[in-house]
């Protein structure tokens, strides 16, 4: 009976905190910002990458001295996506000043050396320090290498030698990363943004309903109500969790929507954010949100003022961000013991799910069990803090 009553009172507290925070315009805007910023940034970055990829495929090659190598120019013209144009007089300056991405220069003695079957120089002028033109330079070099190999083969055949004789190695590239994994590399930020959105979503209620409630002087009248302290703590934590989960879901949905708009398939890349994968995302995100909300509530209850609580939140924010940053330096996947590390475990579940290989039940269970255990522990600590006169009345 009393247990049921305690649960009902926690629900009453939770409902009030949610209603109260929904009316806090400034807090809502900050949550909305944190929810939107991730997908917007990713969309922007992906669009740039896709544009560049396309630029490399549809390459315009300025050539200086076209008339010195008409056969080469004709061959280039016949390649898919290649346009040839007259190059600028001073090729190096044009590239240095970023007027051209890459310029091919055919020297005057090209035809002569070519006719003599001596290596004929073709100069590729490019700026290796520029990330945005690297793909185009690579494309041009590959095209020239293909042409050189074709001509070489023809010359051998003319001399009665099989081209195979000068190809002791047949190099075959076997790419083991799947398209989804490559997508995940670019999109490793999505799990981090989901986690940060969950963190920021719960932060407002977690601090306002604990440190804020005390600072307003409304904690004392609240605690005069005949309810166990655990009910107050649970209600406040629950409200923060609901907001956290809501934000995380919203960010996930926005990312899913975004990836539909982006021409990811053109890059040979696909991101798993369909309805079937949404469930896995929730399985990873919900225990995480429950845990971060409990952590926030505990820290905010311990801090001396609302302001102090807010500055602690800034430090805690590293929690959901670090795994993403570490993983971008040291790529790692789900293993049982890594999944047992709070935050990092959830991050791995999310990133593996989004790259198209959701981990098994054991990994999900390990991560969830750790998060739940920590949550229960933190709620106990907060309940004890709510019983302390030092905490209730400030120091």
């Amino acid at each position, binding site marked *: 009976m009393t247990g049921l*009553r305690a649960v009902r*009172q926690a629900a*009453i*507290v939770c409902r*009030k905190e949610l*209603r*109260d925070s929904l*009316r*806090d315009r400034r807090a809502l805007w900050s949550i909305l910002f944190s929810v939107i910023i991730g997908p917007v940034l990713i969309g922007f970055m992906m669009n740039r990458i896709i544009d560049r990829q396309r630029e490399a495929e549809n390459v315009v090659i300025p050539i200086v001295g076209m008339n010195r190598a008409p056969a080469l120019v004709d061959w280039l013209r016949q390649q898919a996506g290649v346009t040839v144009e007259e190059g600028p007089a001073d090729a190096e300056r044009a590239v240095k000043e970023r007027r051209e991405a890459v310029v091919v220069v055919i020297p005057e003695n090209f035809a002569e050396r070519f006719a003599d079957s001596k290596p004929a120089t073709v100069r590729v002028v490019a700026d290796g320090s520029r990330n945005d033109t690297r793909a185009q330079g690579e494309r041009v070099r590959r095209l020239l290498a293909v042409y050189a190999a074709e001509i070489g083969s023809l010359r051998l055949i003319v001399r009665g030698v099989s081209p195979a004789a000068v190809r002791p190695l047949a190099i075959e590239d076997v790419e083991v990363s799947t398209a989804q994994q490559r997508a995940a590399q670019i999109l490793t930020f999505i799990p981090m943004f989901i986690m940060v959105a969950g963190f920021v979503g719960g932060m407002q209620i977690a601090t306002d309903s604990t440190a804020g409630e005390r600072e*307003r*002087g*409304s*904690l*004392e*009248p*609240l*605690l*005069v*109500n*005949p*309810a*166990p302290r655990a009910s107050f703590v649970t209600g406040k934590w629950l409200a923060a969790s609901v907001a956290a989960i809501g934000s995380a879901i919203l960010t996930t949905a926005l990312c899913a929507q975004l990836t539909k708009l982006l021409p990811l398939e053109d890059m040979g890349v696909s991101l798993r954010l369909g309805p079937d994968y949404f469930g896995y995302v929730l399985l990873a995100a919900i225990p995480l949100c429950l845990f971060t909300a409990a952590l926030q509530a505990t820290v905010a209850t311990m801090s001396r003022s609302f302001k102090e609580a807010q500055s602690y939140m800034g430090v805690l924010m590293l929690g959901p961000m670090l795994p993403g940053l570490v993983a971008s330096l040291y790529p790692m996947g789900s293993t049982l013991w890594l999944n047992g590390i709070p935050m990092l475990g959830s991050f791995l579940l999310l990133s593996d799910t989004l790259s198209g290989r959701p981990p098994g039940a054991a990994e999900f269970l390990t991560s969830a069990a750790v998060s739940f255990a920590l949550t229960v522990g933190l709620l106990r600590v907060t309940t004890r803090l709510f019983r302390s*006169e030092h905490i*209730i009345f400030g120091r």
Partner: protein
Amino acid sequence: MIRIEDVRKHFGSVAAVDGVSFTAENGAITGLLGPNGAGKTTTLRMLYAVMAPDSGQIHVDDIDAVASPQTAQARLGVLPDGFGLYPRLTAREHLEYFGALHDMGGAHLARRIDELLDLLDMRGIADRRTAGFSHGERTKVALARALVHDPQNVLLDEPTNGLDVMSTRAVRAIVGRLRDEGRCVLFSSHVMQEVSALCDSIVVMSRGKVAAVGSPDDLRRQTGHDNLEDAFVKLADRRRRPSA
């Protein structure tokens, strides 16, 4: 009815409440009078069970408030020092929240809220958020919130502090009405006139101890001062310098 016996509370080496005993009867207004720092608020906080006494007994309607604080709290209506309202909630929502925490709901709670809105003349502000409320309006909300569950015992910590004349009169009228309904009203104040005008019984506190207990007339007699304010000063002073 509220009964406290030999209650003590220390903060570090300071004895904030040092062996306080008194009884507040039903159908009477008991005033807890004393200068700032006399231990009034600490005594009340132990009474409404947000602080635990170091030693001593507290009974609310014969319920041991130290052993079963929640059962005692259910029978208490409390207006703490500093009202602590939620600026984004309306006056009505404050009453709904606390009513719900007292296991009230539905038509019963709605009716009770209507009653209180009428009693405290709060109809005009009932559905406005409390953010812009005047001091008097905030007092009314806090008072209504304390009374929402129709408690037998009402504790008011300096309820008229900082109120204008009209609001003070309104609060006094409510307090009188609560007494007439047979409730036990305990209220603290450092304002002499208020206590003498309102209270049936006065507990004078000074430095964590009870300096005197009695009706306003008793106190005048005890101290030999016709003026209650002089009586009060003398009582507080006697505590401060026991040798004098």
